[in-house]
C-alpha cells in the first residue's frame, strides 16, 4: 500500500448505513481541498456503499485495502472546499 500523508482518520465500524456515510461526509467537510482522510469501515454494506457515495460527492478514492479482520481502510482525498 502506498503511503499517504493522512490529515485525519475516522472509524465508522460502530454505525450502520447511512450513518456511516453521514459521518464520513461530516469528516470530509471539515477538511480542506487536497486533504486526505482515512476511514475504517466494515465489510458488507459499508464497503459497498460508502466509497461509491463519496465518489458521487466529487471526492477522490485513493485506495481501499482489506485489513483481514472484517474491516477495510478507505483512503479518500477531499476535492473542493
Amino acid at each position, binding site marked *: 500500500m502506498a503511503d499517504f500523508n493522512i490529515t485525519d482518520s475516522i472509524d465508522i465500524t460502530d454505525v450502520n448505513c*447511512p450513518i456511516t456515510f453521514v459521518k464520513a461526509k461530516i469528516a470530509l467537510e471539515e477538511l480542506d481541498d487536497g486533504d486526505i482522510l482515512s476511514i475504517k469501515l466494515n465489510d458488507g454494506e459499508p464497503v459497498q456503499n460508502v466509497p461509491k457515495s463519496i465518489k458521487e460527492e466529487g471526492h477522490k478514492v485513493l485506495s481501499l485495502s482489506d485489513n483481514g479482520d472484517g474491516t477495510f481502510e478507505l483512503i479518500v482525498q477531499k476535492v473542493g472546499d
Partner: protein
Amino acid sequence: MAFTNEQIERYSRHIILKEVGAKGQKKLLNAKVLVIGAGGLGAPVAMYLAAAGIGTIGIADADEVDLSNLQRQIIHQTKDVGKPKVQSAKETMEAMNPDVKVITYHEFITSENILDIIKDYDFIIDGTDNFPAKFLINDACVMAKKPFSHAGIIRFQGQLMTYVPGQGPCYRCVFKEPPPKDAVPTCKQAGVIGAMGGVIGSLQAMEAVKYILGVGDLLTGYLLTYDALKMQFRKVKLPSDTHSCAVCGDNPTITELIDYEQAECDGVGL
C-alpha cells in the same frame, strides 16, 4: 460547533443531501425564523421548521386554541383547547426537537411592535388570516429589509409568494391595498379544507429552508396558486417593475406602518 451522535442521526437525511451537508445543517441550526400566526398555515410551517432543526423559531399569535381550529391546525391537540396557541405550538415544537429554542409572542402584531419583533429574525412567515396583517407584515419586511413568505388560504384554494429585498416585487406591488371590509370573506365565514394549510404551509417552510441554505430558486417574482378541486398549480409570473410601488418603489409614499381596520368577523386564526 460539532454535531452530537444524536444530531448526526436526527439530521442524517439532510446531511446526506449534497445541497445541505453538515454545513447546511449548521446553517439551519443557527437560523432564526419568525412564524406569524399559529393557525392553519403556521402549524405545519412551525412543525417542519422545528423538525428541520431551525435553531430559533419565533411564534406570534394572540389567540387561544378553539375546538374549531383542530380540523386543520395540526400543531394543537384536543387537550390544548383554551390554551394560548403560542404555548401549545411551543410545547409541540419542543417535544419534536429539543435542539429548537422557541420564542413566543402572545400578542397581536401591530405597527407598534412588528419592527421590534422581526428585527432579530432571518426570515419571516406570514401565516395570518387577514388583510391588515398581511399588508402590515409586507410593509414592515420591506422597511426592515427582511425576506418573507406570504400565503393565504380559503375554501379549496391557496396561494403563496416569496419576497426577498431587491429581488422582485413585494406583496403590495401586486395587491395595492386591502380590499374593502367584507368584500372578501374570511375563512371563518367561507370555510377552508383542512389539508390546504398543510399544502401551502409546507411550501412556505420549504422556501424558508431554501433561503437559509442558499439553494435553488425561490418563489420571488412569482405567485403560486393552488386549486385543490381542479388539482391545479399555477406559477404566475409577476410584473418585474417595482419602481412605482408605494412601499418598495423608488419614491415610496408609504413610509410609516399602517394599522388597517379589520373586518369585524376577522380575528380567528386561520
